[in-house]
């Protein structure tokens, strides 16, 4: 028996179905996390922009007030604003880095899921399966496809390599 040859008995088939389900869920979770980080990044960068513009206003206002009355409140508030903006910028970068790390992970999960999907689909097409087993695989495949599409939509799943012929290498629609 060659290395790539596997006996597709009931246990193996169940295992493949289980893997299909597990990887689908993991990919979904990864995509959700990426989406959350993207939203968080967007909120943070908006806040930084807002704080910076208000902070700049406070500083210039505080400078004038300080010159005339010696009241340093506006100035201090402006500087505090800049410190908060710096903190938020740092949070933004950390959020973006985490998002990229998860994206890289989700690329790998996506590729693995695709391999499992191919295996499951081939078993369903050419293997000796009961109607119930076929239905189960079909439903799991639909779910896995949805997860893959969503992962691609979030823009982090790997672009298909168009030179890898015969491996579903066109642009997905």
């Amino acid at each position, binding site marked *: *028996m*060659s290395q*790539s*040859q*596997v*006996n*597709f008995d009931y246990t193996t088939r169940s295992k493949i179905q289980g893997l299909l389900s597990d990887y689908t869920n993991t990919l979904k979770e990864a995509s959700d996390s990426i989406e959350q980080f993207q939203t968080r990044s967007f909120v943070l960068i908006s806040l930084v922009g807002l704080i910076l513009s208000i902070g700049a206003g406070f500083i210039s206002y505080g400078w004038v007030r300080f010159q005339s009355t010696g009241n340093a409140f506006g100035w201090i508030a402006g500087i505090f604003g800049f410190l908060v903006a710096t903190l938020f910028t740092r949070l933004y970068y950390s959020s973006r880095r985490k998002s990229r790390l998860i994206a890289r992970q989700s690329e790998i999960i996506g590729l693995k899921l*695709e391999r499992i*999907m*191919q*295996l499951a*689909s*081939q*078993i*369903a*097409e*050419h*293997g*000796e*399966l009961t109607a119930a087993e*076929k239905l189960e*695989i*079909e439903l799991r*495949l*639909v779910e896995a*496809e949805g997860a*893959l*599409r969503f992962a691609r939509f979030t823009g982090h799943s790997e672009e298909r390599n*168009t*030179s*890898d*012929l*015969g*491996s*579903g*290498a*066109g*642009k*997905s*629609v």
Partner: protein
Amino acid sequence: MLYVEPSLALSLTELAIEKRKSFAPLARRIKHWLKRGRLKIVIFGPGGTGKTTLGHFLAGNLDIGNTSAGYAESMDVESFKLKGDLVCSLIVPPGQELREYHWTGLYRDLAAGKSSGVINVVSWGYHSFQALSYQDTKYFKPPMTKAEFFESYLQNRRDREQEIINNLTPRLMDAKGKIWMITLVTKQDLWWDDRTQVDKHYLEGPYNDCIQQIIRKRGEQNFAHEYLSVSLIINNLVTSAGEVLASTVSGYGQPIQLANSTKFVETVNSFASR
């Protein structure tokens, strides 16, 4: 006849190489786009017949003489852009029975007249499959030999091809607007010695009954059809376990391959330009 005979092949080879090298100027593409808009061609067919490879070939990503990287099932509906003057998308859905739900939307497009052409890819049963040994498939019943298995497999896959054209027939009969179709028999290199039989199978059997039914319903004005055959990649039919199910026919070479693929490309272009 669905193939170019070897006697004609050599004279067409030089022309084919020249054509494959030429790039269409942007102006011609714009002219075609203004005249006809964006065309859509749907590639139907069972899994493992070479639909994705055909997409690559028409998109100009695959050169004749290329050797296969092995079969891997497509996981989603794919789209390619046709190389040449025409502004045209090629839509390729997965062909596995279990994944036919992808076809529903494409049938809808046909009904709405959004697709101008259909290529139905068949391969006289020589469908590739992945990951399994032939002994793991449902077609193998012990104590079958490999040859007996393959006979049973081919028959099953030919039935699947017929099932697809049976399902496609009513959709094509009711499709809106003028439509053209090419029945493309791939993997010519595997069945070349049996070409008269292949010709007979498609042109005189129940497959052609379906085509005639569509022609009768729509009329020749509204439905153009052509039978053609190609070999996009010359390769043995091998399972993932390394078992050779069918070998490339000796004597089948690049001149025949080029001549037939040129004829196919020309037909696609002439149909799509109508």
